[in-house]
């Protein structure tokens, strides 16, 4: 589903190179974990996949379901099924959550040539998804993420993911700022979305999340490259030995 080859990326503003020849392949149905120390380029990878304009791709390619992802802008990628669950979801004052969800769902439906959702159908879907994630429906009457706690924001991200039914989900440190119960709820939400036609990239520092969302593959990112790949046991090994040892051994 996703094929990244020799990807070099720098920050547009100051030219700092973050990704230095990254190779990664993620198949449909797969859950791939990307782990790595601070500053290794994990969040940059998530932003480049979603199309944020502050980064410049100097070399390499990203192919998504056979198409060149780098040729598409942010909203086109999202409409094509790429979803980024933000590490820090922004609060948008004045934009009601329900309006936002409806606009987003209909924008994607329109892109796929489907009819807009009727209001009752829309509300029904949101209610069901919110109940699964134990989100109080009244919370969704507030502006987007405004006044949400850290955990509520992360749950709201998973709610959007459930409603938008993307093909490629990228979870950027979704576990950060979550207590144990919230971690469980969020993980259940993600597991619920596991599907033979959907790939999930889980970006995290910690192995803990991977107890709940068991990955098919684990990749270690260091200094802008994948330095080691393995199965779920690699995450346990990292937890035990730390990044330094594994990275040194891989070098």
């Amino acid at each position, binding site marked *: 589903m996703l094929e990244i080859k020799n990807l070099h990326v720098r920050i547009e503003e100051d030219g700092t190179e973050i990704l230095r020849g990254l190779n990664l392949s993620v198949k449909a149905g797969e859950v791939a974990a990307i782990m790595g120390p601070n500053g290794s380029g994990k969040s940059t990878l998530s932003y480049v996949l979603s199309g944020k304009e502050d980064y410049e791709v100097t070399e390499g390619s990203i192919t998504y379901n056979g198409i060149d992802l780098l040729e598409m802008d942010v*909203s086109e990628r999202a409409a094509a099924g790429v979803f980024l669950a933000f590490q820090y*979801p922004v609060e948008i004052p004045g*934009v009601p959550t329900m309006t936002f969800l409806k606009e987003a769902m209909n924008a994607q439906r329109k892109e796929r040539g489907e009819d807009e959702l009727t209001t009752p159908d829309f509300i029904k879907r949101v209610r069901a998804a919110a109940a699964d994630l134990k989100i109080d429906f009244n919370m969704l009457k507030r502006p987007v993420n405004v006044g949400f706690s850290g955990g509520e924001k992360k749950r709201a991200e998973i709610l*959007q993911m459930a409603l938008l039914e993307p093909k490629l989900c990228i979870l950027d440190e979704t576990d950060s700022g979550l207590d144990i119960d919230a971690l469980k709820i969020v993980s259940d939400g993600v597991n619920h979305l596991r599907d033979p036609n959907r790939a999930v990239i889980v970006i995290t520092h910690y192995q803990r999340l991977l107890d709940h969302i068991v990955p098919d593959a684990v990749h270690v990112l260091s200094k802008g490259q994948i330095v080691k790949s393995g199965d779920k046991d690699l995450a346990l090994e990292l937890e035990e030995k730390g990044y330094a040892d594994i990275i040194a051994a891989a070098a």
Partner: protein
Amino acid sequence: MNAHTPRLLTEGETGLIEAFKAAEWLPGREDVGDIRAAAINAIAAHGLPTRRVEAFHYTDLRALLPAGFKPSKRPAIAEASAAMTDYERLVSAVRIPLVNGHYFADIAGDCPQGVSIVPTFLNSGLGAGAFDAADAVDTVNSAFVTDGVAVTVSKDVAVDAIMTFAHSYVGEAGGIAATRNSVTVEDGATATMVDRSCGNDALAYLRSTVTELTVGEGAELTYILSIEEGDAAQRLANLKATLAKDAVLNLFVLNAGGKLVRQELDFSVDGENAALNISGVNLMGGEAHIDVTSRIYHRVPNTTAEETFRNVCTGRGRGVFQGQIRVAQPAQLTDARMACNTLLLSDDCDFSAKPELEIFADDVQCAHGATVADLEPSYLFYLRARGISEDAARRILVKAFVNEVVEELENETLVEALEGVIDTWMVRHV
């Protein structure tokens, strides 16, 4: 004795003077004629204001007002009727049709109980009478005014129906549509009025209106000024209001049209415990130049004024907000607040904001603040990352910015209607 400096009149100025000479038909008693003549003489002597006049510092009327306008004669009733049929209603309301500056009583809505709607004014002199020669907007109106309506809400009457001044413009380009209206809400009465101006985008015309609001003791008036002039229209307008003791005036101003708009707002807070709530949205796109100049005069103790404008500039649009607060020496415990927040969405647009505070009382609170910003990039990215196109995402954010003030109007019908006008503007400009 000042030496008279000969000055060259611009085409715009000469145009007004020539048009006046040719328009002997302008209505009114003899004393009205004298006022008109004095007004046009003032224009001939001083010209229209330039940037050097402080109140016009950001709107050089002399340079901006084009030539070629002459007073518009009364259109045939069939034409006025057709204009009103085309005039999609903003809200369900009692309509007071003012087509090309002429009142059409025959096609007006039924007058609500306890209200009088009377076209008296030109027979009884020009309303409050004399014009203020220092005020170009007033002067032009005094010279060319063709009609006017006085709306009076009787003492203690609560009017449920919304009444609308429906200003329209039809026929040939180049007309001056000038009216002078008044709304008096007597002691203890309450009313809601819409004052709306529309015109065909293809027609250049000059709208001149002076409207006087009088809010009596304990009375409450909600007044919606919706300026939706055509793309080629010029508008010189003044809304004046006086507030008696315990009076409340809720004024909402929407600017969503016109090429050149100078909208003056003059408030005299004359009675204790009077409350003035002003909010508004100014939308400047294309080649529009929109100037809102507000002057609030607190004359007595214990009055409040709150003024909030949200402005959006795009294209080559230019916007101006001048907000003056004057507090007279006796007006202790005045509480006046003014905020002006602007979004600049293009490289070629601009906005000028100027607060002006003159305070002679020592125990008052007066605050003013202005902000200017572009849309927040992280908000845009977040919306786009959910599949919403860039244009749609921008509109969502602009709408959120302006709706905060629109939604403060508690009347849902009015909120929806105004949001509709804003949406239409956004589809064209954002």
